[in-house]
């Protein structure tokens, strides 16, 4: 089973291209119902923003390679998970 993981979240710049790619694959444009969501909060003392990435498990229905490759900073990885009796090990 292939899973999308945000392995380098600190490299996220909040461009939301992954969100829009996920939505395009569902033939829509917008934020509502997206399998990827980006949250932002100010980082203390730096004046920068800290982003966090929320992945709905349903994202695995999508073309993960396209989502991974649209990110300008290589935030995502695709990992292979072994299944045993329908559960990941």
């Amino acid at each position, binding site marked *: 089973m292939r899973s999308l993981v945000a392995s380098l979240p600190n490299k996220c710049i909040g461009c939301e291209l992954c969100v829009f790619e996920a939505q395009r694959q569902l033939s829509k444009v*917008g934020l509502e119902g997206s399998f990827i969501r980006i949250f932002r909060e100010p980082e203390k003392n730096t004046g920068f923003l800290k982003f966090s990435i929320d992945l709905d498990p349903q994202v695995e229905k999508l073309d993960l390679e396209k989502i991974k490759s649209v990110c300008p*900073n290589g935030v995502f990885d695709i990992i292979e998970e072994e299944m045993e009796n329908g559960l990941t090990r």
Partner: protein
Amino acid sequence: MDLQGKKVLYVNLNKHTSETKTLPDLNQYIGGVGVGLKLLESAKQYDPIIFSIGPLNGFFPYASKTAIVINSEAVEDLYIGGTLSTRIRFSGLDAIVLLGKSETTTVLDINNEQVTFRDDFANYGLPGKRGVMKTTTNNLVLDDYFIAPGTLLIDKMRDKNIEGLVMTGTRTFDIKQKEKYEHLYYQILERKDELSIKQGLFPSCSGCPMGCEKSKYGDLGGNILTHSLVTCKFAERIYSNINTAFSCLNVLGYHYTHEDLENLPNLIQKMLRGFYD
């Protein structure tokens, strides 16, 4: 998405009321500064602040700014990045017009077309789907990072007793020509070498992969077509090309002609002259 006219949210600050109107006559002004100036012309007596996006915001890369048109000592247009343009797009609106002055200090919490006048920023908007603009001591700050250029907008917001604006958009749009749209989207995304800034790791505007240092401070003035499409000024080389702009509009279902785009600068300059005659 309603392509028959521009959907405008009018907010009456005096009465704390709002209404949405669809205005077909605004289509010829494309969006952004064009639509903003026309709205300013028609509401000048109410000293409006106009937020206006373009038809490509939310749909194409580097179309990541919001035009703000105000009348100060002169007519001014300025542009800010962050998430505001996509949140206005996904609210289904093309423009927001703030009219008059609030008697008390207020935060405008706009959820699609619904406006709530709040006392503070507690429990506002929907995380991940909102853009937040706040007045601070020295600046007007969007999404805790992006800063509106100059002081005109923050002065105007303070005059009107607006402490901030929260914009949440929860609408989605179907793509009719999915294959063509996606092809064009990626074709434009891959043209990042044509942008006049360097890629970085700074917080980026929604829909832009560049993470550039300069987006933080917004823009003032510039190319009429790109500011009507409300694309980033650093992507001017891409979107000031009429064929590119036409293709993008066409794939979204707009019926603009090449001539409409070519004539836009004249149309806007004529309107601008009207402000000073």
